[in-house]
């Protein structure tokens, strides 16, 4: 008996003394000390930085900025107050919290990639390392650009922060744009110049040199326009921006596809397909999340603009957000194939759409509209979260119009040629060309063309703001005898969005609210 007991005591002591009894490792997680070592680890960290692109639903930036622009109202049900607040520039507390969080999460993940690549064992070939770094730089720039366009005054974070470092004050817009520009220059310089036809189909969705160059053009035009500057804070000159855009036009192999309506899913069997020759950069979506709300792999914006409550064949159901302003429908010229390919006129298409909801106009989005014949349920998905149409963030037509704008006061012939390509495709003939002239008149023609070509693609609000706050105000203000459609842009906000109250609270005073918004 005693012997057994003594043995027990010895055993206990053995357990007690062995460190390993209390030193465990998680079974369902990797650990940072042993991660970021192999090229596969590096790829996983980069994929996590891409993953954040897919976030956003009712507050997706494409939808929110279209609602804030002159082209759409808020719409949706009585409960969908945020959409009406964005439409009318009304104060709220935290409607922009998810966007703020999304962009900083994406920035954090890109910063992780940038800070960890040196510790990875790449072997003798560092091609992958250069590529991953370039892609992470692009993604960080992409997130910052959306963030700084929305909020204007944002903290600049370029490395993963440690506890105690979180109260970062807001940086000047100039500093943020400098980072965006240098990130994109890095990506453009370090990604290979492989033309569209040479890109393996399995790599569609990855960042390319062309995407970085095109985004640089967009950033240049926005920063110089909105802030009234000649260059991006000494980082990118106008001549450089032209060179980048010209390079995409000439060397990327991207081109306009033959017919505008074929660009969109609503063309059904005639749809040119995703990753077509006009898709310079797209955010990839899929139904393969299969109804799992924890995954964000589907395009959750699409259900928002669907026909409210019930499908109206051939279109599918959703929540009726962003009713299109009839003014946009009316602004198109006769013969422009883009009108009926961009907008659904309930009346013109002879649809029966009985749903009643605030700010209903009878005009719906056709671009990105979920289609009855391509609904997520048919692939075992959920109609709310598994719509699967990629968001085309940079389209070649946009590149051409940026090129026209940048060359307007330089190489007018080139500008005219770029502009003609877009217009000829839209009207399917050469009889609708307009003559560009240097200065305001030519710029006006290009901005109008952008509105028609890129309608509902998430560019309009920014295109207005970069022409100056008075232009935006004049376009956005909407007077109507029906009070629900009355919109007054508030110039004191300069078009910037309200910084989420929760973040102001958590910053302990280091963040300041943008002008014109409640604290």
């Amino acid at each position, binding site marked *: 008996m005693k012997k057994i007991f003594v043995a027990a005591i010895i055993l206990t002591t053995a357990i007690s003394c062995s460190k390993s009894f209390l030193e465990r490792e998680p079974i369902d997680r990797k650990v940072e000390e042993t991660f970021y070592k192999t090229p596969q680890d590096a790829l996983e960290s980069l994929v996590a*930085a891409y993953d954040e692109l897919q976030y956003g639903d009712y507050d997706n930036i494409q939808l929110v900025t279209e609602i804030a622009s002159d082209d759409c109202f808020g719409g949706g049900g009585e409960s969908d107050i945020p959409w009406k607040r964005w439409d009318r520039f009304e104060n709220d507390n935290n409607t922009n919290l998810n966007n703020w969080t999304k962009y900083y999460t994406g920035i954090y993940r890109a910063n992780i990639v940038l800070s960890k690549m040196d510790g990875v064992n790449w072997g003798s070939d560092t091609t992958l390392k250069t590529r991953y770094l370039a892609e992470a730089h692009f993604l960080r720039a992409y997130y910052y650009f959306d963030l700084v366009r929305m909020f204007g005054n944002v903290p600049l974070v370029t490395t993963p922060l440690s506890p105690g470092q979180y109260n970062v004050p807001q940086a000047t817009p100039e500093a943020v744009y400098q980072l965006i520009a240098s990130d994109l220059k890095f990506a453009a310089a370090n990604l290979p110049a492989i033309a569209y036809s040479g890109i393996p189909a399995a790599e569609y*969705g990855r960042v390319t040199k062309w995407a970085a160059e095109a985004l640089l053009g967009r950033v240049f035009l926005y920063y110089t326009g909105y802030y009234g500057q000649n260059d991006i804070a000494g980082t990118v000159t106008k001549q450089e921006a032209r060179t980048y855009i010209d390079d995409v036009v000439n060397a990327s192999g991207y081109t306009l596809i033959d017919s505008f309506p074929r660009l969109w899913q609503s063309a059904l069997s005639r749809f040119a397909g995703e990753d077509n020759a006009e898709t310079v950069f797209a955010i*990839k979506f899929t139904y*393969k999340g299969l109804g*799992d709300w924890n995954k964000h792999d589907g395009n959750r914006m699409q259900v928002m603009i669907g026909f409210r409550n019930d499908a109206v064949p051939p279109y599918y159901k959703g929540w009726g957000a962003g009713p299109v302003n009839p003014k946009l429908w009316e602004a198109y010229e006769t013969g422009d194939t883009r009108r009926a390919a961009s907008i659904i006129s309930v009346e013109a298409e002879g649809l029966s759409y009985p749903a009643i909801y605030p700010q209903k106009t009878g005009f719906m989005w056709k671009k990105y509209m979920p289609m009855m014949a391509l609904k997520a349920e048919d692939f075992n998905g959920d109609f709310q979260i598994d719509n699967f149409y990629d968001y085309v963030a940079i389209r070649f037509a946009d590149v051409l119009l940026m090129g026209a704008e940048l060359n307007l006061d330089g190489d007018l012939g080139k500008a005219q040629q770029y502009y003609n390509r877009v217009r000829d495709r839209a009207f399917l003939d050469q009889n609708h060309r307009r003559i560009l002239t240097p200065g305001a008149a030519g710029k006006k023609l290009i901005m109008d063309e952008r509105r028609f070509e890129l309608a509902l693609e998430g560019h309009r609000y920014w295109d207005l703001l970069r022409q100056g706050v008075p232009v935006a105000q004049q376009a956005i203000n909407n007077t109507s005898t029906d009070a629900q459609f009355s919109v007054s842009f508030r110039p004191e906000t300069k078009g910037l969005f309200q910084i989420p109250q929760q973040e102001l609270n958590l910053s*302990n005073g280091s963040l300041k609210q943008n002008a014109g918004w409640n604290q």
Partner: protein
Amino acid sequence: MNVSPLFPVYDSAGNYAKSNFNPDEANPVAIMDYQNQNRSKTDRIVGNAYLEVMPIKGLKLRSDFGLDLNYLNENRFTPVYDLATNIVNLHSRAFQGITQTRTWNWDNTISYQRDFGKHSATVLVGTTANETNVFFVNGYKEDVTIADLDHSIINNGTNEDTKQIYGSRSEDALLSYFGRINYNYDEKYLFTAIFRRDGSTRFGANNRFGSFPAFSAGWVASNEEFMKTNWLDFLKVRASWGRNGNLPAVYAYDNIATTSYLYMATISSVNQDYYFGNGDVKFTGSSPDRVPNPDLKWETSEQLDLGFDAQLLKDFNVSFDWYRKTTRDWIITVPVPALAGTKPPTVNGGSVKNQGVEVALGYTHRFGELSFGINGNVTLNKNDVIDIPNAEKVIVGDANVPFVGIDEIFRTQQGHPVGYFYGLKTDGIFQNEAEVQSYTGKNGLIQPNAKPGDVRFADLNGDGVIDSRDKTEIGNPNPDVTYGINLNLGYKGFDLSVFLYGVSGNQVFNGVRDYAAPLSNYTTEILGRWHGEGTSNYLPRMTMGDDANQNWTRSSDLFVKDASFLRVRSINLGYDFKKGLFPRLPLQQLRLYVSGSNLFTFTKYKGMDPEVGYGPYPWASGIDVGTYPQPKTVIVGVNARF
């Protein structure tokens, strides 16, 4: 509760009726039926074995091993349903799951007890080790061949695309060393000292172990010769001071595995996929789970207690305590700015003090056949945060609680009670446009967006605008006083016991109505709203929730209600036939009883239940989100003992 009263539960054919009014509105009875079809079975084996030897007198060696095995099997079934335009389930689903939990505990102690005349001492040293392992596998398959709960097994599902399997395993272990000395002199002077050193897998190498001493001393005055009286039967004066350790709490939104490694820089690969290529090929993404805190250490509760217990005149019992309980190195997960980029760290965040007195009085007596007993206790407590380890001494709460769109309503701050309600003070209702126009500060109108019938918020800092800088403490979810009364009566075969429980001095944040869902129901309180000059100076006009004045999306004292209550927690009335009418029954007891719980509640609170108080964190409470109230129950039963 938020469903419109415009459609019946069942239609004329006896099926669940649908709302033809709101496409997002489902029949709540049908939802309860369809979404709660589950069945679980638990098999449990609990065993304990010990070995004790006494090699010499007074020396005891003891080894004690306990094992607890818990096997849980679950089936769930979700039918196909169509309850509203937007509340539709197209795929029936059969779910099966198995969870095994295995816990063992092993104590080993050596103790030595010895008396020297009137001195008596015991010395004990020992170790405790325990470990909990959880192992689970869950899965489901959709489109089942036999659509009911009895046949909800995975093999009856037919959809290969959507089938899912989940499984994991986790471990959690604790190891302690401890020693104890008990000493007493003649049953008059008592003294105990304890020292423990506890280690847990939930902490990293830096702070895996914590040390926790405790001391107590007592004097049984009534055992002293000079205190012998005929009215004082027992009197003990006592004092104690001690510390013990607490582990990180398990949060509802986290699973055990991740809370076990809060100190570690873990990398998650869950739900961070991206799909590249024309065929949407999945790539796995990985990134840090949360901000790690390698220095996370034990939370310490320190308690100082002074008190006495007395028995007087045989029938009266009195006990009194003054206590001060201080929680140091409070383990807490605090929100951090989103630019942290990942989940916030769990930290040792400050200290909280609870100080108060507790008094218990009791009286029991037999009057012939009638036995009578009454016990009452009352605790007066004051809760105070004494430190938060950041420059502002504040832990900021979440926005969007209790409904989407509302600003932060609770926070924890040095010098305030834990989780106090934080918001604007209101100052009545604007009765007319002239009142709006006359509410001015240094920048002109203070509430330029207000209309008659809107709330007038107090500009506490006097800067001429209403904003977050005007927010202040508007309520406290922690009661000042809690009390209970227990009454027992027995007469022949009858027995009656009544238990009352009450609290006072606390408030509830009534967030039951979701102002982001403007079609949800109001209580009848809305009849007293402002609907014209002079009609109400408290409840604002009715809006769809999008009023520019933000009457109901700013946190304010409009939501904060007094939640003091006195509740008849239980009443038991029984009659034992053995003691009464039929003493010869061949049973030890045959008792018929009626018992009721929560039958009566006395409160001014207008919500369903003043005692239900949700909080999204362990340190936040008292937020009424319309949780199912505590039910009133009446049970009639029979106890028989052989």
